[in-house]
């Protein structure tokens, strides 16, 4: 049934896309370094930055097209929808994140300079796809239904959106920490959001932009200061953060994860070093990130985008379970995990409008929700026996 030649070309296209994403990611980071961000959060690229940006966009777009071809040929090779095992699922997740990043985050919302981080997420997802590689083949009957098409495609769309949301949330937490640390030493610049509730109530006249602002904040575009100020304190933001912790934490987390899941020292070493590199890049990029308030708003918008899709995915899953197993909900680990993820994202949305939880509190729930998503996806499939585990690796 499976066509080996098509399957092989799908694999080569995958590799090509993988390489383009890595190169695009590097160029995006290069672009970030040539971006100037004023305190109001309007990114301006220098000439080198603009050129790099255009190149990176081209690379990422080309990579996404090649990747799409890989996914389509995979489906043709197996003669079914190309999302029935974890390799395919991880691959599509990465593709979805890149496409969502390019179309929505970069084009529509104008946060193109953050795309390096989005691509990093996609590259990680593709790495896990490589580690979980399975030959193209048919599926067991329970997976052969149009509801699975609906259910899994919705789940994939939502998950890839949540990957991008996680990127924004993590960057928010980093930027917010930097802003707070600088605020503690420098009375002039007090950070942009932040954890809004902990600061004195924001005057209502700031309605037009961003979020509430602390006292003593001056809008450089409104008058004095201008770019000079915008530069002075953001660079202090980098100094306020530990250059050791930034590579170390991702290294430990990713290495532990890869070691536990795959027990492969080489993969652990590679993934760990890549994560450390990414951590260092984040540390370096802190001054160029938009203000924390903007990142917070960005994360919220993305999650608000993904949440209804996830809700729908869970519902479609329940309907599929009804058709396949005769019960719509049975607290099977996968179902429980998806519900848990859903609850946490609902918690995030609530925390965003609850005093005392706004800002960092909400962001941590957002991080937790993403961890839940990953656990539901990897741990439940790999370690826990349930009806869903016959979906296999």
């Amino acid at each position: 049934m499976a066509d080996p030649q098509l399957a092989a070309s799908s694999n080569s296209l995958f590799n090509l896309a993988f390489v383009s994403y890595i190169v695009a990611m590097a160029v995006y980071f290069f672009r970030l370094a040539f971006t100037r961000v004023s305190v109001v959060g309007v990114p301006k690229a220098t000439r080198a930055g603009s050129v790099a940006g255009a190149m990176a966009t081209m690379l990422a777009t080309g990579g996404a097209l090649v990747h799409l071809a890989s996914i389509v040929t995979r489906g043709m090779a197996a003669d079914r929808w190309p999302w029935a095992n974890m390799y395919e699922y991880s691959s599509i997740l990465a593709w979805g994140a890149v496409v969502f990043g390019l179309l929505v985050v970069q084009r529509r919302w104008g946060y193109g300079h953050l795309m390096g981080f989005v691509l990093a997420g996609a590259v990680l997802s593709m790495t896990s796809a490589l580690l979980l590689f399975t030959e193209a083949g048919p599926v067991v009957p329970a997976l052969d239904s149009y509801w699975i098409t609906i259910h899994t495609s919705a789940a994939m769309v939502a998950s890839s959106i949540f990957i991008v949301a996680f990127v924004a949330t993590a960057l928010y937490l980093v930027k917010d920490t930097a802003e707070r640390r600088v605020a503690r030493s420098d009375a002039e610049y007090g950070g942009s959001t932040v954890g809004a509730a902990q600061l004195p109530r924001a005057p209502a006249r700031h309605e037009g932009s961003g979020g509430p602002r602390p006292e003593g904040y001056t809008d450089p575009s409104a008058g004095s200061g201008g770019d000079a100020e915008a530069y002075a304190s953001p660079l202090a933001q980098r100094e306020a953060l530990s250059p050791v912790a930034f590579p170390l934490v991702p290294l430990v987390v990713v290495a532990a994860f890869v070691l536990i899941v795959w027990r492969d020292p080489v993969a652990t070493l590679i993934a760990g070093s890549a994560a450390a590199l990414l951590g260092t890049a984040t540390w370096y990029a802190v001054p160029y990130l938009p203000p924390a308030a903007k990142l917070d708003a960005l994360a919220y918008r993305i999650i608000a985008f993904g949440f209804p899709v996830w809700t729908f995915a869970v519902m479609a899953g329940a309907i599929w379970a009804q058709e396949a197993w005769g019960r719509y909900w049975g607290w099977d680990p996968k179902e429980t995990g998806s519900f848990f993820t859903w609850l946490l994202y609902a918690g995030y949305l609530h925390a965003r409008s609850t005093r005392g939880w706004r800002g960092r509190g909400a962001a941590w729930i957002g991080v937790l929700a993403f961890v839940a998503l990953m656990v539901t996806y990897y741990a439940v499939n790999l370690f826990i026996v349930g009806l869903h585990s016959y979906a296999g690796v």
Partner: protein
Amino acid sequence: MTQTTAATDTRPRESGPRGSRLPEIPGPGETFARAWKALRRMSTALKLLLALTVAVILGTFVPQEPVIPTTVAEWRLGTSGPGEATAAAFDALGLFDVFGAWWFNALVVLLVTSLTGCLVPRIRAFVRTARRRPAAGRNLARLTHHVELRTPLPPGEALDRAETAVTRRRFRRRRIAADDAPGGAAQLATERGHAREGGSIAFHISFYVLVTGAMIGHTFGFTGQVNVVEGASFADTRIAYDLAQPGRWFPFAAHRGFVVELEDFSASYLETPSGTDPGAEAPGDLVTGGALSTFMPTDFSSRVTISEGGEVVREEEVRVNDPLSHDGVSLYQVRFGLAPQIEVRTTDGTVLYTDSVILTEAGGFVWQGVAPVARTEVDRQVALELILLPDAGFNEQGLPVSRSPEPRNPRLAAVVWVGELGLERNRPPSEFQRDRGQQLPQPVILELGETAQVQGLPLEIEFTGLPYWSGFQVSQEPGRWVLLAGAGLMLIGLVPSLYAYRRRVWVEAHPDGEGSRVVLAGVALHRKGVFAEAFEGLADDVAHRLGAVEAPAPEPHLETTERKA
């Protein structure tokens, strides 16, 4: 952070002095009022929500008895899992059945109470605001978003045209005559975005609908499992089911009584030679039982007929993902297997037993089951332990194995047990008392159609056929439509609650010579960035319709900052 520490530091000092000031003890009414107030707080709801997620984590990682009872049993015995003591602690906390535990239900009740406490005032307020007509605007020039336009049109005409622009954007409108307007000029007050709060309320209400649907299904529904051999049938009555889970108030009269006959069952497999599959075990391995290929079921389906009053009313195929629904009862294909047909006779030709024995897979394409052959004389019962290799062969070590799941070369082994086996008990035959019985040393090996003598007993066994059996789940789900409606309401509510936003726009037209001076102003309660863009679009549209030019703004520097933001 620092604030909270300071607060805890000072508290003991205040209430410390020699108990002279006892803390006030609130009365029951007050306690209740306080608890109610706390429950209605959003932060409480959030904490409850997070507590629920913790419960759900436990439910994911601790094996759940209703889902995998065997693992739970092993944990309790300490043969697997974290040990006996931990398992006992888990049991005490109800962790093996989180979703049935009292504290989980208490949490849900608290959350629902909190939700109700939030929703009632919200609904009241929503109804009030939704009914109110758009309010007149004051001091429009001071609002975040505003533009002034000059137009040759008279005020009435100008407002008419502006109204067309907002109507196209589906704003609610209200015209206020100059005499009633706060600014002393005729005004058009408009508003949009009640869908946000309305959607959010619908979304939260959908919980009640979903919970109701689930409860209806739980209490009035029925789920049963039944295994049928090809050619056999069962009736939709209570006793027909091997395992029945009726809801608490499921009326037994609700069993429909129709008869389902399994005409025929078919399974097809995809065979992949092991050599090309790096994941497969080597031949001779115990797991694959020496199979040279891996087999994956690609399709399996049951052809059934349904009869009512002795007459066939339906004939259909039931597959995974393609259940059969008849008269409010759904029939799902869930499992299948082989059921060798055997006949056991005494040597003088008396038939002791003739039936198909439902076997279950023991791994490696080997099937097992027990046939209770003679059970009348309690101390001289006979049981056959059957082992079926559907595709018998030998592996490299010369041990008998089954090479595939398909009955290509079936071989049936029957181990004969005699003695006080306890077959008369109301238990599955496979749980017969091995310790009280005696196993005959020589198993009987049969090919399909073959008859063999039992050594040491005056019995003979014939392997007469090898049909499939098919396992169905049969259910009645009266809450199904309520659940679907709840899910629909949830989605319909969720989308506007996240994307819609409340905003108001006012247009005020002052007479100005021949024409008028028009002020267009707006505010948004949420999604301010989006509104800023929308307002610009609206302002351009209105200006275009009025044939207007933008008037020099009274405070130019403020105007520019606004535009930038």
